[in-house]
């Protein structure tokens, strides 16, 4: 276990490595996650085309993505630290949903089902927000 600081939490991180089977030689990125129970994870994933961040986390058994990625349920609402990472702009559908949430944070809130998986996300810090 490596010690990792994600947001204001510094603790030993649980490694989830989903990169071992890589026949197509896809890029690999690392995502730092703090779950709503305070556990910290490092998720290593291949950069599959046509996936979004929510799908990658859901495949790693984080409980989210109930509406399937339509920005309609907010089960993938996360706070994101994005130093040096350029994220896709918030769409009006995403903003509509975020606007309803009590836990909305103007600078950090995103629905991660709306963020395509890209190599540029390497090292991103994600805090899963409890409903």
């Amino acid at each position, binding site marked *: 276990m490596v010690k990792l600081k994600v947001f204001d939490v510094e603790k030993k991180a649980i490694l989830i490595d989903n990169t071992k089977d890589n026949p197509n030689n896809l890029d690999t990125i690392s995502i730092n996650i703090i779950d709503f129970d305070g556990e910290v994870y490092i998720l290593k994933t291949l950069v599959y085309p046509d996936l979004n961040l929510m799908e990658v986390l859901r495949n790693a058994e984080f409980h989210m993505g*109930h509406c399937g990625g*339509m920005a309609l349920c*907010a089960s993938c609402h996360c706070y994101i630290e994005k130093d040096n990472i350029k994220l896709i702009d918030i769409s*009006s559908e995403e903003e509509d949903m975020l*606007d*309803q*949430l*009590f836990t909305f944070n103007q600078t950090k809130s995103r629905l991660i089902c709306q963020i395509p998986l890209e190599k540029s996300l390497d090292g991103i810090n994600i805090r899963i927000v409890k*409903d």
Partner: protein
Amino acid sequence: MLPKSSQLKQLIRMIKTDILIIGAGPCGLFAVFEAGLLKMRCHLIDYLPQAGGQCSEIYPKKPIYDIPGFPKILAGELVENLMEQIKPFKPGFTLGERVEKIKKSQDGLFHVTTSLGTKHISKVVVIAAGLGCFEPRKPNILNLSMFENKGIDYIIKDPMVYKNKKVVISGGGDSALDWSIFLSNNIASEVSLVHRRESFRGHPDSVEKVNQLSKEGKINLITKAEVVDIQGNDNLQLLKIKSDNQIFDLSADFWIPLFGLSPKLGPIANWGLNLDKNAISVNTLDYSTNIEGIYAIGDINTYPGKLKLILSGFHEAALMSQSAFKHVFPDGKKSFKYTTVLGQIEGF
């Protein structure tokens, strides 16, 4: 001896049926049809105030492309069609109530009680609860639970409860806007709408109407603000509102936080069913659970190869109904007929 009025009330509220379906989403609704073909009567319970599950609550205007026979159909239209399709079988509905307890008696009947105390008796229980119960997202405020149903409501069932009362609504979506407009029209004595941001992202007509009512003094619009504390004795009396780092008091009989709904497995987890990652394990022979007489269909169940599709749920409903027949009519002889052979749908 005649029953006392309290006993009579209990008897009246006791609903008896062959199959009790928990969850009135598309799979639960279609189960009524498949069961009806085999002459089994159904009653549905759902926590939402209307039938249709996610299709009605989350994405009624979204097109679905993988319903066989429909190249494209809006989710809301699919629910309307299903309601039409099951009409001959006259299903009963208990809506706006959450199933809390399931108890199996020695005679094999299931006794099912809801959050509002409505009692149901059935020979078979089918859990078609999708992602679980859609529960309101609750603000993170101390003492919130002390005032739930004592001034704090998350779902509006009967607007007349707020007649001549001081009502505060929180939220920025269509629900918050629409209910503010509705309650300000000679129902509540005062309506305040508190929203964290300056602008609203609801339907433009609703936003315009709220702004107009605010100008007319019928809605007290408080933006860039949020409720940070609640106070009262037995019932809610006062909200503390934070705006621009200032905190002020707002007198209120009711606070209605409308921050959307979020699915939770809820009490299902306590019914003794075999679970696997928030889903109910079933036998794919008939989608029965580990408890004899309880089935699980649709998104709530899991098995090797499970696909969370509406069409999978429809298939599961058909096989479940064939199996449930033996519980409903232990001595009955089932005959399988195509609906084309029947010529018409014979209801109840």
